[in-house]
């Protein structure tokens, strides 16, 4: 695990972060620090606040309480500094269904000001070159997921926010995307997964959420599968 230095600030530093929707408190008092390049696996039952946490880190939601820093930028004032260095893979692929995968990636490349060719290269690497010119609505869920993963890493982000990235992927697809979003990619990662063993295997740190509160924060090698299953009880 790399320690924070002046050149590589902590990927994520949260202190007492909270967020509410009206009266319903989705997140309360979340505090942890994720060093640069490290992976944290986030576990929790449905409704525990995992998606809310991810959207706050993606700077799509403002925290209502506490201090949140992403890649050294304090949210929400300095969000503009970190925008464009974060890649989000949520439940939606965020692709336009009537455009082709290639066109979608070209669009995102223009928004992020990266070379359009990067999209084509990525599509080849995940094995979508043959279907790159078909509309996204004709792709199977696994292929759409692979295209979404290309969109996520298109701008070479320093922090990856992944919500069940391997859902819908067959073993071949999972292997194809591993260099892009897996442990070896070198990026800091916040990984939501319902596959306890698999998540633990990849994690440097483990964060457990229950009903919006932080129930568990420990280094990955000190957490057992049973501990994690307890979160879902």
């Amino acid at each position, binding site marked *: 695990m790399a320690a924070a230095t002046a050149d590589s600030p902590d990927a994520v530093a949260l202190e007492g972060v909270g967020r509410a929707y009206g009266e319903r408190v989705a997140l309360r008092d979340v505090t942890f620090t994720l060093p640069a390049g490290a992976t944290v696996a986030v576990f929790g039952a449905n409704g525990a606040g995992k998606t809310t946490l991810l959207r706050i880190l993606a700077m*799509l939601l403002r925290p209502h309480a506490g201090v949140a820093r992403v890649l050294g930028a304090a949210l929400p004032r300095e969000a503009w500094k970190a925008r*464009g260095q974060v890649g*989000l893979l949520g439940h939606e692929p*965020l*692709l336009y269904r*009537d455009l082709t995968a290639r066109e979608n990636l070209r669009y995102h490349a223009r*928004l992020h*000001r990266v070379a359009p060719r990067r999209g084509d290269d990525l599509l080849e690497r995940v094995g979508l070159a043959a279907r790159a010119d078909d509309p996204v609505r004709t792709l199977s869920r696994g292929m759409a997921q692979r295209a979404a993963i290309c969109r996520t890493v298109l701008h070479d982000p320093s922090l990856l926010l992944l919500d069940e990235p391997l859902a819908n992927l067959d073993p071949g697809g999972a292997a194809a995307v591993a260099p892009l979003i897996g442990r070896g990619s070198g990026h800091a990662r916040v990984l939501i997964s319902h596959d306890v063993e698999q998540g633990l295997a990849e994690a440097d740190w483990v964060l457990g959420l229950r009903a919006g509160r932080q129930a568990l924060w420990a280094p990955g090698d000190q957490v057992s599968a049973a501990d994690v299953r307890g979160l879902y009880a």
Partner: protein
Amino acid sequence: MAAVSAVVRKDLRLEARAFESVPAMLMFSVTTFVLFHFGLDRGALAGDLAAGVLWVTLLLAAVLGMNRLFATEHEQGGFDGFLLAPVDRTALFVAKATVLFAFLVAAELIAVPAFALLLLEPGAGQALPELVAVLALADAGIAVVGTLVGALGVQTRARELMIPLLALPLLIPVIIGAAEATAPLFAAAGAEPLPGRWLAVLALYDAVFALLAYAVFDFLLED
């Protein structure tokens, strides 16, 4: 700027692929002209009646475009995709207003000649450059207000109801200005000169709402 052009190109490409807005606006306009023929029981219109029929129809057709303007973004995650990028949020407003303006122009390229063919008195004035000027100014106002209201409405539940209810009162000054400016152009005895003050009204309206929309649009996107 690059972001604006990226969004505009993407939307034009989507429209060319899926054909949602412009054909609907066009078909609606032409059908409405036919309805007016039967409703008014007149075959030929001139002067302010012609101007009124044309502008009410164009305005209602524009509402169709407004309803669809942000629908794809809302349904397919376009907002998130845009907000994740390191771009100025107002670029989305500028891009969408440009797109709506383009759709209006595209629909009018066929709808206005259709109107002239179907409903306009044969002798009525042909003052094309003046008409184009009025269309341009009015379309700009409709585009600005339509984008703002489209963004306001897309998050609400009864979107197709809320957007016209909000947009149409806001656009009444546009209809007043456009109809008053166009009426002399359609005079039965031949086109009369364009009353300049109505162009000034339209321009003022466009300027005020463009500045206003530019200032508040960010607040509609943030969370």
